């Protein structure tokens, strides 16, 4: 597509429920990234994919968080048993490929998650 598309744009859920956030990157971009932005704070790195593999999962906050990417395209971030501290905007970005100088990230509009 023309840009990075994320869905849903807004999600309100109850504590303990599972949620799935979807990211559709720019066509041809091999690298895909997930970040989290809490209210008034900077961006927290979660995970990135090169193709379908995730070389760096170090940013995932807990084992309740998981992500996958299939077909080198769409990615899903899953949060199990959501907690109130998971409330944030989840941002997805893509880039042509991983490598210094090429890491110009194009961001989606984000998925705002509210856990009640």
């Amino acid at each position: 597509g023309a840009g990075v598309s994320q869905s849903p744009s807004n999600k309100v859920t109850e504590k303990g429920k599972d949620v799935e956030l979807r990211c559709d990157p720019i066509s041809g971009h091999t690298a895909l990234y997930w970040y989290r932005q809490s209210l008034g704070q900077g961006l927290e790195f979660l995970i990135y994919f090169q193709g379908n593999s995730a070389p760096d999962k170090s940013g995932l906050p807990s084992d309740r968080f998981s992500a996958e990417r299939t077909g080198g395209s769409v990615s899903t971030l899953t949060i199990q048993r959501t907690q109130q501290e998971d409330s944030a905007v989840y941002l997805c970005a893509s880039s042509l490929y991983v490598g210094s100088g090429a890491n110009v990230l194009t961001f989606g509009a984000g998925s705002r998650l509210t856990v009640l």
Partner: protein
Amino acid sequence: AQSVTQLDSHVSVSEGTPVLLRCNYSSSYSPSLFWYVQHPNKGLQLLLKYTSAATLVKGINGFEAEFKKSETSFHLTKPSAHMSDAAEYFCVVSSNAGKSTFGDGTTLTVKP
């Protein structure tokens, strides 16, 4: 390991006066450095990037930044602020390992 420190969480200037947003970085590799801007309720947009070419980098909307290796700095400047510049600005360092590390952001307020 890499890190970014944005030295000011808030900067307030008057319209027509210069803007300076400060950023210091730390990286084990020769880094690429970026500035992104986030307008209220909008997505992040690339302002400019440094990738080991010219140390003075020009970006969109009249912004520029200078890479100073000796000072490990990459400060963002603009000669004359416009009201439309009011936004959140993020300094970013990136290595070959693929991870881009964002600073905590600087909120720029422009007063009429």
